[in-house]
C-alpha cells in the first residue's frame, strides 16, 4: 500500500490535517465543530500517517504511546470539569465563564463580534478533553485494523 505517491502526499497533507483538527477543537466554543469533530479530524490525520509508514515503524511507535491512558485522561478531565460545579452550584455548571480566570475565563462580549478565543469557561476545556479522548479512541481503532490486516498478510 505504501507507494511514493502516498508518502509524498502525506508529507504535505498530514501536518495540515493535524493543525486543522487542533483548530476545530480549540475553536469549538466559537465556530461549528468541537471536541468530537476535531478529534475525529485529528485521528484521520494520524490514520494517514499510519497508512503511509512501514508496519514495524508504526508498531514500535505506538507501543510506547499510551492511547488507552489518553482515553481515560480525556474522560476523567471532562468529568472533573463537570464536577467543578459542585462548588456551590450544580453538576456541569459553567463556573469559569466570565470569572476572570486567565485561561478561557474572559468576559464574553455581547453583540456582533469576530469571536474571542479567551472566553467560554469550561466549554473549551471540555472540548479539549473530548478531543483527546476521541483522537485516542479512533486512532486505536484504526491501529487495530492496520496491525491485524498486516499480520494476516505476512502469514499468507
Amino acid at each position, binding site marked *: 500500500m505504501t507507494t511514493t505517491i502516498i508518502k509524498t502526499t502525506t508529507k504535505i497533507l498530514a501536518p495540515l490535517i493535524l493543525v486543522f483538527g487542533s483548530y476545530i477543537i480549540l475553536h469549538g466554543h466559537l465556530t461549528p465543530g468541537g471536541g468530537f469533530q476535531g478529534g475525529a479530524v485529528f485521528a484521520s490525520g494520524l490514520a494517514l500517517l499510519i497508512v503511509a509508514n512501514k508496519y514495524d515503524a508504526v508498531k514500535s511507535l505506538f507501543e510506547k504511546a499510551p492511547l488507552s491512558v489518553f482515553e481515560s485522561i480525556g474522560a476523567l478531565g471532562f*468529568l472533573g470539569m463537570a464536577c467543578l460545579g459542585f462548588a456551590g452550584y*450544580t453538576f456541569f455548571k459553567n463556573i469559569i465563564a466570565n470569572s476572570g480566570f486567565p485561561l478561557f475565563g474572559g468576559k464574553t462580549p455581547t453583540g456582533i463580534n469576530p469571536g474571542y478565543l479567551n472566553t467560554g469557561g469550561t466549554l473549551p476545556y471540555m472540548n479539549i478533553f473530548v478531543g483527546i479522548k476521541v483522537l485516542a479512541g479512533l486512532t486505536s481503532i484504526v491501529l487495530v485494523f492496520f496491525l491485524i490486516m498486516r499480520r494476516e498478510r505476512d502469514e499468507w
Partner: protein
Amino acid sequence: MIEHLPALIIAIPLFGAFIAPLFKKKQSIAAVWAILITAITVILSLMLMYQVRLHGIIVYVFGADKPTIVLPSGYKVPIRIMFEIDGIGAFMAISATLMSFVGALYSYSHVKAESGLEKYYALLLLLEVGILGMVLTGDLFNLFVFLEIAGIAGSALVGFRNYRGEASEAGIKYLIVSAVASLMVLFAIGILYGEYGNLNLAYISRQVSLSTLDMIAFGLLFASFAMKCGSVPMHYWVPDAYTEVPAGINPVLLVSTYASLYALFRVSFTLFANVSISLERVGWIMSVLGVLTMFIGVTMALVQKDVKRLMSYHAISQTGYMLLGVGVGLTVLHNSDALAEFGRTAMAGGIFHIINHIIYKSLLLMTAGALFYVTGTRNLNEMGGLARKMPITTLCFIVGAAAISGLPPFNGFASKFLIYESSYRLNPLLAVFAMVTSILTLASFVKVFASAFLGPPLEKFENVREVPRPMIVAMVILALLCILFGLFPDVVLNKIVYPAVDALINVAQYQSWGGLA
C-alpha cells in the same frame, strides 16, 4: 452535598469506569475497585430512595445555579437537561446498583482467568451508568443517550469471551438489536421534538394530543422498548445474549433489559398519559403481549438442553408477568373504581415482580455460571451428581428454582399471587395462562435439578470442588434476599413498591416537576 445526590449517583460510577482501564498491570485491583464503586452506588441509591420517600419527586437541573431551578428567569419552558426522580425511578436505581454490586463480587472469581479484565470492569460500570441514567432522567434525548451507553457497553460485554465464536455472534446480534431499537427511539424523539419544540418529558406529556404524528411516535417508542425488553415476538436476541455473557454480568444485563421495560412504562403512563381513550387499548395490547411472552417463553424453555439457554428462555417468560401486571393496571388507569379495586394491586404485582425476578433469575444464572465454572460445559446431559460436591450452590439453586416457580414462601410467590388475583378480575383467561406458565416453569426446573445435581456421581467430576468464596457470597446474598422478600413481602411492598406504583399513576405530580412549576 445531599442535594447533589442525583448527580453523584451518575458521576461516581462514571469516575470508576474511567479509572478502571488504568489498572492494566494489576487486574485484581480493577476487580476490587469495581466492587468498591458499586458498593458506594448501592448506598447512594438507598439514600435516594429515602429522600424520595421523604420529599416526593426530586428534580435536579444540570448546569443551573441551584438544582431546583426548572424554569430559568424569563422562560416558560424548561431548557436544561434535568433528572426527575420519583418512586419508580428510585426503585429501579436500587435494583440496578444492587445487581451491579453482586455482579462485580461474583466476577471477582468467575472471570479471574480471562485477560482484558480492566476493560471488563470499565464496561460493567458503564453499563451501570447507562441503566441509572435511563431510569433517573427526565429528558427524552438524555434517555436515548443513556440507552445507547447501556446498549454498547452491554454488547461489548456479551461478546467478552471473543475466543468463542458464539459469543461474538451474540454480541453482534445484541449490538444490532440495540442499534435498531435506539434508532427508532431517536426517530420518535425527533418527531416529538419537531412537534412540540422541547425534549423535557414532563413538558411534552402536558402538550401531547393524539395527532397522527403522536401515534406514530408512540408506536415507535412502544415497539422499540418492547423489543429491548425481550417481549415476544422480538425475543430472539435474549437467549443468545444471556447465554454467552459471563455469568457475573448477567444480573446487570437483566437490569438493563428491565430499564427498557421501565422506559416502556414511563412512555405509556407518563408521556402519553393525557390520551385517555386509547390507553385502554394499549393496556390490552400490553396484557396480551405479556401472556404471549410468558407462554411462548416457557414452552421454548422446556426443550432446551443448555442450562443457561433454558434459564434465558425463562427470563423471557417472566418478563411476560410484568407486562401482564402493569398492562392490567394500564387498562383500567382512567377507571378509578377498577383501579382502586384491582388495578393498583396488579401494577404492584408487576413492579414487585421486576425486582423479584431480577434477584432470583440472577441467582439461577449465577448457579449456572458456577456449574460452567467447575464442569466447563453447559450441556445438561453431560452433568450429574453435583449436589454432593457443591452443597451451597445446590441450596442456592433450590431457592432460586422455588422462587421462579412461585412456591411459597419465596419471593416469586408474593408477586405472582398479586398478579393472579388481579388479572383474574380483568379477564379470568389471563390468570389461567399465568398459572399454567408457572407450572411449566416448575417442571423445567425439576428437570435441571434432576439432571445436574441429582444422580450418581460421575467419574469425570471426581475432583470438582465448591466454587470460590466471592461467588458463594454473591449467590448467598441473593438467596437470602429471595427468602426475605418472600417472608416479608408487605415491608417491601409498602416501602418501595407502592411508592413506585403511585408514582406511575400520579401523572400530575410528575408533569409539574413535583410542584416546582
